[in-house]
């Protein structure tokens, strides 16, 4: 049984052998946070405690299991919003202790990457491009259960930039999927900057692109010029995707791996999926299933399967770690 509550989704899943979903209940608060134009942490925590036992009950019912059928309890303990994480962690600890089951703490990003295990077995070494509303990073996995960051965003996450740009276009939160759709109908005519594309590292930066976008739109407003919104979306998306693909290709050259995994909420972006498909030729590309790109507990169950093999358990003192992150691969930080 796995729990995920790091942001605005309360989710409980029952996963068998790390790759079979018996149930994956996701209670999403998007409509609540839409009212505020983004996730309000205290509101998120309040929703999580409203939903948590309902999700447990539904997950067990749908999977048709009893507590005797369970091997372990897994939970996201970071990174994320601390108050939100704490509901999943507290509930998971209670269930694990009540039924004398081992408790497996899972890194949220490891969870996102592990969503690929529902497509096919992950082969190592592997490289993962994780792109979401809170994260943009390249993660090297030399072997099973080992995660090393080789590059990450220096400012905004890619998904965050999508949401902010969407707001300027008058779209409601979360804007990412709509920008993706609009981009499909537009052309890259604005030629926004590709930040850090030429730098000798695997880091990203999206705040300059975001500012360039906002300046373009505001300037047009001032001179009463109407810009094609689809072209704006397409230009923004091209800039994001170009940098992501470019850095990924560069990383694949230095670190030859068996698989490249695309995961995280923005991995559902069609522009990004297509661009990677077209440019990754030498390495097998494994994309997280669209349904499992957003936050969900199924992916946490997949990650926990690996940790369970290694007996990576926690006691009842487990706490949330909002700024949890993988270690950097040394030398990569040139």
């Amino acid at each position, binding site marked *: 049984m796995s729990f995920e509550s790091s942001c605005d989704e309360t989710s409980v899943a029952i996963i068998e052998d790390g790759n079979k979903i018996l149930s994956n209940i996701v209670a999403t608060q998007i409509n609540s946070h839409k009212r505020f134009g983004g996730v309000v942490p205290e509101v998120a925590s309040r929703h999580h405690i409203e939903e948590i*036992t*309902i*999700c447990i009950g*539904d997950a067990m019912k749908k999977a048709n299991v009893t507590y005797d059928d369970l091997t372990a309890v897994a939970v996201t303990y970071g990174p994320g919003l601390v108050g939100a994480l*704490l509901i999943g962690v*507290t509930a998971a600890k*209670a269930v694990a202790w*009540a039924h004398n089951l081992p408790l497996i703490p899972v890194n949220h990003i490891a969870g996102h990457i592990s969503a690929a295990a529902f497509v096919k077995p992950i082969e190592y070494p592997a490289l993962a491009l994780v792109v979401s509303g809170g994260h943009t990073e390249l993660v090297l996995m030399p072997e099973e259960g080992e995660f090393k960051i080789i590059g990450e965003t220096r400012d905004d996450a890619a998904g965050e930039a999508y949401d902010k740009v969407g707001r300027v276009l008058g779209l409601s939160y979360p804007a990412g999927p709509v920008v993706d759709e609009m981009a499909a109908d537009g052309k890259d005519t604005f030629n926004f900057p590709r930040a850090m594309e030429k730098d000798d590292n695997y880091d990203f930066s999206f705040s300059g692109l975001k500012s360039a976008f906002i300046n373009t739109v505001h300037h047009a407003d001032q001179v009463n010029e109407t810009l094609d919104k689809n072209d704006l979306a397409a230009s923004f998306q091209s800039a994001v995707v170009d940098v992501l693909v470019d850095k990924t290709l560069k990383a694949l050259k230095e670190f030859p791996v068996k698989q490249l995994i695309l995961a995280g909420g923005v991995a559902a972006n069609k522009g990004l999926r297509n661009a990677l498909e077209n440019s990754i030729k030498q390495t097998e590309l494994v994309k997280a299933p669209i349904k499992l790109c957003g936050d969900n507990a199924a992916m946490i169950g997949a990650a926990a399967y690996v940790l369970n093999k290694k007996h990576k358990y926690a006691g*009842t*003192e487990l706490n949330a770690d909002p700024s949890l992150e993988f270690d950097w691969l040394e030398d990569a930080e040139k």
Partner: protein
Amino acid sequence: MKVLALDTSNRPLTVAIVEDNQILATETTTVHQKHAEFLMPVIEDMFNKCDLKPNDIDRIVVSSGPGSYTGIRIATATAKTLAFTLNKELVGVSSLCTLALNCEQENMLVMPIFNARNNNAFTGLYRIVDGQPVSMIEDCHTDFDQWLDRIKHNFDNEQICLVGDYSVFLDEITEKLGKNFYELKFDNNLPKAVKLAKYGQTLSPVDNIDNFVPRYLRLTKAESDWQKLHPEEVNQSYVQKND
């Protein structure tokens, strides 16, 4: 009846296991506020020492707020999940009422206070009737001056027992209510899970554990701003479930 009682509403953490009128174990700490980390180990350790299994408990009683938002969520989420997963009875008690349990003088008025900063407080007024606190003015989040005016208006000249964070408000209280109060001190100014457990045995358990949530007594700022602008949409559900 074996009862597990817990309160992490503010800085103190208190846990007890009580069987009818007998205290099996209790622990209270005040030196830290790391409830997320320490609550479950305290419970686990207490069950081990009492030679009890989680399933041996009949009822869980929790102080469900008001208090620190994170604090009340930790105790409430723990109690709610344990009751749900073990299929046991769940009772929620106001965290202010839990403090009021420390006053045992029959017919006395009790005013438990949690400091909510900027001269605000979470407070309520109780009267001890047949040895138990009965709510006279509902728990609320209030400006403390306005609160004292209300007390003076309705209960003038009655002696009041103060418990909780009263010391920061003592000047105001003296100014408005005179010297007609007395202060609970030392152990009687801490929430006691043993008393919570005993009191919780007398209440009816919640009908639906899924619906059990903390008593925040205060909307988030985002939510109250939004409600002011959208009075017609209050009480809608915004959470969507997919499976």
